């Protein structure tokens, strides 16, 4: 299975990258943007999708500071 893991800073933890992007957008004329957060995405093929959660907790994300979301992206 092809999967995507989306990793983002936990809510409530200061995200200076998100703030920097949020401040840059109005400078380019884009208005009405808020709540910007910058994370990362890991794409992978896995034979056993049941292992994905364990992979996230042990390596792909640090659950103390990051939330993760597993998204199946087709066979």
């Amino acid at each position, binding site marked *: 299975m092809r999967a995507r893991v989306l990793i983002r800073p936990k809510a409530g933890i200061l995200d*200076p990258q998100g703030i920097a992007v949020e401040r840059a957008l109005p400078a380019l004329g884009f208005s009405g943007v808020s709540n910007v957060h910058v994370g990362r995405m890991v794409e992978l093929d896995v034979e056993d999708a049941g292992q994905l959660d364990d992979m996230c907790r042990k390596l*792909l994300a*640090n659950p103390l500071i990051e939330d993760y979301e597993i998204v199946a992206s087709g066979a």
Partner: protein
Amino acid sequence: MKFGVIRFPGSCDDVDAQLAASRVGEAVLLWHGDRDLHGADVVIVPGGFSYGDYLRVGAIARFAPVMEEVIGFARSGGPVLGICNGFQVLCEAGLLPGALLPNVGLRFRCLQTEVEVLNADTVFTRACEPGERLSIPVKHTTGRYYVPEHELHRLEADGQVVLRYAPGENPNGSARDIAGVCNEAGNVMGLMPHPEHAVDELVGGSADGLKLFASAAVAHA
């Protein structure tokens, strides 16, 4: 008295740490792929960019073969010091509480800082006085210490906050100006400043960093 300094691919302060430690004892380098601490009495996890800091700082280094030995050594009371990237690795390995986040200003900070010793009763601060100020440089992009608020209270109450940036000196936005913490037992410590770069007044701005290495030697004696 033998210090073992780990060398990961991407470590860059390993030799400085070895030179600093060699002023107070014997110091050898330990290869990341080697499941052997070669009889080290104290382990130092140095600064740098272990495994390229891919994925997340310290995330991959914690799975290095030598880290299995370090974790066992630390759990049985062996003294372990993590400096900068080493601090990040020890947090990822679960040997220290918390995590290091990108600096608030998103910039790489490289400057001499003043830190206060809050706990002079750990393996690595025994040669210091409580409240003493040390002048030690920092150089990092990911040094903002974070633990959840409830744990922050507990760490402070239990004396696990070992070093704090002096007022006005916090270079990265760390919670409560925290520069260094230890585990509950006090044998594992991590800090963002680089004591190994402050061991000679001629080139280090001060020789205050040497006190951390000397503390470990005193503790061992």
